[in-house]
């Protein structure tokens, strides 16, 4: 390949940001000044191209330092990694958090998604925008869910520099958001993670028991509270024993698809191709979901240990933690935990002195919901556009870097610890025969005590809402997030299990429970959901790329109409929705019409 890098030069700062990540360039082939020695050797080619997966970290490095990515910076990064500039441009423009046009160093992301919208995000945005107009040195960016739904409305300020500074304002008033954006360095510290747990301190908590009890920055404290007993048991059982235990426990994936974890692990472990990889999907971007953030912020070592167990079971020596870009505190906590674990021999060449090598690398997402789709996530890590791949082949055969890969989300992995510490039988006794174990729910919206709840599978939706203190005038509950469906207030006896929600014609999804009272106009909610999917579609396949646009257009047309006047457009929505569900490549397009459909059919949104 004969790459063409153009004439644009990076500024010293941009060059420094890239070099801080990749080290200084060794020769003019990589962008250093030319020396005589360079005429006699060439470096690059296959060796350099193998570092393509550093493209996303490289884009982050520049964006973090300067606030945007210039032609010169992109060109230099491409030269360093032997990536064609057109492809790198395609990757950089894919993510919402990057800008390829100059912009002020500070960006204030204001969430306008469902929970924040119900809590007055519209007024917040208008207030903030009028205060932070042109010349304020702050770009206000309205955007999708920031995963702070328990403290809605929320805003996240990111100020580029060395180091980059982030600060969160939630719940945000106009005053607080403006203050946070103008001085992110001196903004008030966020409340501790356990403040998101209304049940904190309850001794029956299995998954969340350590949050707020053990110091999330202290490895010894984690061990004093039962940490690393699961990994010891795993080493005693051996990989096949761990998989047997997980299978017998009936653990299924908590990300929404409910695939049996044991079966996924067995298939990965027995795939002949090597190396194997473990990927932890921490790209929790479903509007209304924030449980993984709370787990990572409140009990980060648990995820490190769980990833080690999973990697040991599937025969992986490298694990990637793909963490969404909007979670700066979770990132800091996980970086610290991984560093500590490595320093203490709990990661590295010889984990726990058992001769097993495993290490974890963190990869930050950059604002793309689609990267939560498992194969899109692989593409994103590899330095390609976060577009989903067509399946088959499945990740257990050809996943990350084309190798057998087990991918699980944070909640699924954290469940592996109690499976091993209590044993499969005791774990399987929790919940129902079809849905075993404890489950985390993210409750937000019109409730007195929003937050993450842990309940054994089988509790009803009504029981959960009662626990959270549902307010008067409940109009609808969105179950499973934007990709889920609405449930009526008279359907609250639906049991929260995979089989129970399926029977009731809805889905548990990722465990989102958003309550809406009658103060929120339903058509506006639906418009927000449609806008979300239109924004987040990767654009690869036609049904999703154009279908999500047509869906939003039709909803705009009927926003003010009901009954017969809306009939034509509802019929059109059904037809387009059916084709999106049937013919889209991935789950995003396939579920983009779920919530709207359920609002029409179950709530009579336009009758």
């Amino acid at each position, binding site marked *: *390949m004969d790459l063409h890098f153009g004439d644009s030069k990076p500024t010293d700062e941009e060059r420094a940001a890239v070099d801080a990540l990749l080290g200084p360039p060794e020769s003019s082939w990589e962008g250093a000044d030319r020396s005589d020695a360079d005429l006699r050797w060439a470096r690059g080619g296959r060796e350099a191209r193998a570092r393509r997966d550093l493209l996303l970290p490289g884009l982050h490095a520049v964006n973090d330092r300067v606030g945007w990515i210039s032609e010169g910076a992109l060109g230099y990064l491409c030269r360093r990694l032997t990536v064609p500039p057109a492809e790198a441009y395609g990757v950089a423009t894919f993510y919402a958090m990057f800008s390829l046009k100059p912009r002020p160093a500070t960006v204030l992301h204001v969430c306008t998604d469902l929970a924040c919208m119900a809590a007055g995000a519209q007024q917040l945005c208008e207030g903030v925008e009028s205060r932070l107009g042109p010349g304020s040195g702050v770009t206000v960016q309205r955007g999708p869910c920031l995963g702070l739904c328990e403290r809605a409305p929320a805003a996240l300020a990111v100020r580029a520099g060395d180091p980059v500074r982030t600060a969160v304002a939630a719940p945000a008033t106009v005053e607080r958001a403006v203050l946070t954006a103008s001085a992110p360095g001196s903004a008030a510290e966020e409340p501790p993670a356990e403040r998101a747990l209304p049940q904190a301190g309850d001794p029956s908590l299995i998954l969340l028991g350590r949050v707020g009890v053990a110091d999330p920055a202290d490895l010894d404290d984690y061990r004093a509270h039962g940490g690393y007993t699961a990994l010891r048991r795993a080493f005693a059982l051996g990989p096949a024993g761990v998989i047997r235990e997980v299978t017998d426990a009936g653990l299924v994936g908590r990300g929404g698809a409910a695939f049996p974890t044991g079966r996924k692990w067995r298939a990965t472990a027995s795939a002949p191709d090597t190396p194997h990889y473990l990927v932890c999907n921490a790209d929790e971007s479903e509007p209304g979901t924030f449980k993984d953030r709370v787990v990572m912020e409140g009990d980060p070592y648990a995820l490190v240990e769980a990833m080690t167990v999973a990697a040991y079971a599937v025969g992986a020596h490298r694990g990637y933690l793909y963490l969404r870009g909007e979670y700066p505190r979770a990132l800091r906590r996980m970086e610290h935990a991984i560093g500590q674990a490595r320093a203490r021999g709990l990661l590295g060449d010889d984990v726990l002195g058992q001769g097993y090598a495993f290490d974890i690398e963190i990869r930050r997402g950059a604002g793309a919901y689609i990267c939560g789709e498992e194969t899109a996530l692989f593409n994103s890590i590899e330095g390609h556009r976060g577009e989903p791949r067509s399946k088959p082949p499945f990740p257990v055969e050809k996943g990350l870097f084309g190798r057998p890969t087990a991918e699980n989300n944070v909640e699924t992995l954290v469940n592996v610890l109690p499976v091993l510490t209590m044993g499969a039988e005791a774990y399987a006794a929790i919940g129902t025969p079809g849905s075993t174990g404890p489950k985390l729910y993210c409750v937000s919206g019109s409730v007195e005590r929003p937050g993450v709840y842990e309940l054994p599978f089988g509790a009803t939706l009504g029981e959960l809402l009662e626990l959270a203190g549902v307010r008067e005038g409940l109009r609808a509950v969105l179950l499973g997030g934007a990709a889920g469906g609405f449930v009526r207030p008279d359907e609250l006896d639906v049991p929260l299990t995979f089989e129970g929600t399926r029977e009731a014609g809805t889905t548990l999804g990722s465990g989102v429970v958003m309550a809406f009272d009658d103060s929120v106009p339903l058509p506006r909610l639906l418009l927000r959901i449609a806008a979300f999917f239109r924004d987040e579609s990767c654009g690869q396949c*036609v049904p999703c790329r*154009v279908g999500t646009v047509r869906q939003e257009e039709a909803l705009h047309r009927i926003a003010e109409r009901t009954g017969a006047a809306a009939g034509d457009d509802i019929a*059109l929505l059904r037809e387009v929705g059916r*084709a999106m569900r049937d*013919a889209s*490549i991935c789950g995003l397009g396939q579920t983009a019409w779920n919530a709207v459909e359920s609002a029409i059919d179950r709530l009579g949104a336009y009758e």
Partner: protein
Amino acid sequence: MTAIPLGTPRRLLEFTLDGEPVRAPEGSTILDACRSAGKDVPTLCQGDTLTPKNACRLCVVEVEGARTLAPACSRGAEEGMRVRTDTERVRHSRRIVLELLASSVDLSTTPGVAGWIEEYGAEPDRYGPDAARVEEEPRIDNTLYVRDYAKCVLCYKCVDACGDQWQNTFAISVSGRGFDARIAVEHDAPLTDSACVYCGNCIEVCPTGALSFRSEFDMREAGTWDESAQTATTTVCAYCGVGCNLTLHVQDNEIVKVTSPHDNPVTHGNLCIKGRFGYQHVQNRD
């Protein structure tokens, strides 16, 4: 005599296609099997010389037991599979996909699509006059070819042909996301500032006319483009010794464009700038 590589013999798979038992060599796709069985399956993004991208979703078929429809172009045939190519569900998806495409881009130069729109009863106009469309002016920034993204269906074929599947030039990629996704060079610059080497292999694979020869573009503008009056003659390129096949499209005794046969085992339809665009000297009669 041209040597035609046959490859190693392959095992035959047996499965059912629309209720009829069919046999297909291991490794073939459902689309291959459909075509050998004489069934017409519409596709836009599938290319005979490229790895299927299955982005257009026009070729979807129903595989028994699957939750969603499967793209025939990339789903491999499996032993015992039951495939239906013409169910109501399949026809519905194809109709909507055609409507979505035809309502958002200009398909006037896409061969075959008018017939499918009629066959599947698609009504692209029903999304209303305000339906979002890709409306961009054609980009004319060089003398050899024109990019008209208002006609682009984002099939990714040009990206694949420019990238690692054929040309290894990597001058173009997809930028942006969702409905705003576009084929672009870096920083959306003019082609002349990019890595493009003007091989024209992207034009060769473009299924919609979004990429076209400047000659064709100008003649269409002038209303003089007339495919029915053209002859196509395949010959050998005279520039170097590789021996690429050229198909010269001639109208009124002038070469109006050059393509290359895809079944040529050496070039598979690929050419370089000279073979593709260097034909002026042939008709220079002064």
